[in-house]
């Protein structure tokens, strides 16, 4: 590539300079195109697991030196990314394995990383495919948060909640609610909540109360959204119960379980084909008297309830 230089001019007069700049831009664009194509076709390798060689948060804190907060942020980003990408992935062998380690590392590096605790509380407990379904991991995380920030009654409440909703241990739940209510600044309704839990543990009304409280007091968008969703799920469960009763009534009158919505509507037991709170129709299982939430619904899957639903067949 020889360059003839004019006697008093520099190499590449202005126009040539523009051409070169353009060439550089084109090459960078090409690089980005290749990268985008690759990112779209292939899943990213979970290279993070090497970082987890340092499984001990304490060791990492020492290594992190002055950059604890930054590293904590980094692990938080990874946690969210991991959760998000796993959730939308198709492959069946995708697991949420790294969610707890990331959150654990983030909170070890920054024990006051509130949002990480809350996130873990919600999403670690979610059953597959919405989460790893590991309430014990969530509890471990939250206990760490309690230790770091004893004034955060929310974490105590969250632990109680997990015991209530996922582990179905109502006595433990009520105990945690009571402990939470004793923290300075805790809201007035925690104590009655403890009592209600003991009395009505496992019943939908109690659950509704709990979620209602979360919905109203949440300081956080997605926490609130989650609570709202749960409430709608409870509504759907109520609706399904109602439909079950209608099917039973149909059977009482005709001697058979209904086979189509039309049958129920004609007979006047149901005014129209019902939609769930998010607008998707319920599914009538022909000939069984059972109703289900459509798998297309945003509320799918409905949570397992502590006690069996009243049996429509009885």
């Amino acid at each position: 590539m020889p360059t003839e230089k004019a006697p008093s001019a520099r190499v590449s007069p202005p126009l040539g300079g523009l051409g070169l700049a353009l060439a550089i831009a084109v090459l960078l664009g090409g690089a980005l195109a290749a990268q985008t194509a690759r990112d779209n076709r292939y899943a990213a390798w979970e290279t993070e697991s090497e970082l987890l060689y340092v499984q001990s948060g304490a060791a990492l804190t020492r290594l992190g030196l002055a950059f604890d907060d930054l590293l904590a942020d980094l692990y938080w980003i990874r946690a969210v990314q991991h959760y998000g990408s796993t959730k939308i992935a198709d492959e069946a062998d995708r697991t949420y394995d790294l969610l707890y380690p990331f959150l654990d590392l983030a909170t070890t590096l920054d024990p006051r990383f509130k949002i990480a605790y809350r996130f873990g509380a919600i999403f670690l407990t979610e059953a597959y495919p919405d989460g790893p379904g590991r309430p014990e991991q969530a509890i471990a995380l939250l206990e760490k948060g309690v230790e770091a920030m004893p004034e955060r009654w929310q974490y105590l409440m969250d632990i109680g909640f997990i015991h209530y909703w996922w582990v179905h241990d109502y006595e433990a739940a009520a105990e945690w609610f009571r402990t939470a209510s004793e923290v300075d600044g805790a809201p007035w309704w925690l104590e009655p909540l403890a009592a209600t839990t003991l009395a009505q543990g496992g019943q939908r009304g109690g659950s509704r109360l709990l979620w209602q409280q979360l919905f109203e007091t949440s300081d956080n968008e997605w926490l609130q959204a989650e609570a709202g969703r749960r409430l709608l799920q409870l509504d759907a469960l109520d609706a399904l119960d109602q439909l079950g009763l209608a099917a039973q009534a149909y059977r009482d009158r005709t001697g058979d379980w209904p086979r189509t919505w039309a049958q129920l509507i004609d007979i006047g037991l149901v005014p129209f084909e019902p939609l769930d709170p998010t607008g998707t129709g319920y599914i009538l299982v022909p000939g069984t008297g059972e109703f289900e939430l459509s798998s297309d619904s945003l509320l799918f899957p409905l949570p397992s309830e502590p006690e069996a639903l009243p049996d429509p067949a009885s």
Partner: protein
Amino acid sequence: MPAIRTEALTKEFPVGFWRKRVHRALDQLTLSVEPGEVFGFLGPNGAGKTTTLKLLLQLIFPTSGVAEILGRPAGSVDVRHRIGYLPETPYFYDNLTAEELLLYFAKLFGYAPADRRRRVDRLLDEVGIGSERRQMLRRFSKGMLQRVGVAQALVNDPEVVFLDEPMSGLDPIGRRQIRELILDLRRQGRTVFFSSHILADAESICSQAGVLVAGRLVSVGRLDEILAVERGWELVVADLSEVAQRAIGSRARRITQIALGRHALEVAPTESDQFVRDCIESGAHVVALNPLHATLEDFFLRAVQDERGNEGASSDDSRATEPPPTS
């Protein structure tokens, strides 16, 4: 066609923290060197000699002006086939041997392998590097590096050779060797352009000299013309009365008291007779009458003094409005 030609060659460097001010390192340099000449480019340190050389080799780019070598633009690649360059205090590559370095450079010129070998062997012999040629350049002394530098400058049998302070840091033997080398090059018909601040060395070898001070070419001329100028006579007299000192001394170029009762007058060549008569008439005795020949040093010092005088008179930033007249 001149071997080297510049026309109003100027170089400004941005200086200062925000790079707003400029320092004019070379100001409107115009000179011309004919083929076969040895041109001594002289000046105090910081005058811009190295800047000029780098402009000629396009290691730096001119702000304005023209630089040509052998009729071609100074930076063009084909010209570089025909020139050689020895930088000031050369440094090459630690991990190569002298031989490997020269072979590498020879490859860049495109010589065939056998030809390369021959050239390199011959050159190393010529500059006096024997078995050390297979040692790493890391081990070479300054003088030996200088010799390697000369060798690499001559790999391609250049028509024009540029030497930047070729004798700096050498002992008298080394200096003599370089001097003889330059004379050899001249005998071979090559053009030599070298810069120096050591005047004594330059005096004996260059056919033309130019003096650069603070970026400006203050004088340029054929050395034999300069040296042919008889400076005049030095008239040493004794017992010159004070009246006569004033009267006669004011007419002389210079009057100095060299001892108690003794004065030296510098007079123009044609006036020596008159001054002798005047002194004798005033009652002084003539002690000696010596001819004075111009040396390059005088030339140089006077040019510097003139320049510094000009600079004092001109505005405070380093811009000049017009090139000073050459003497």
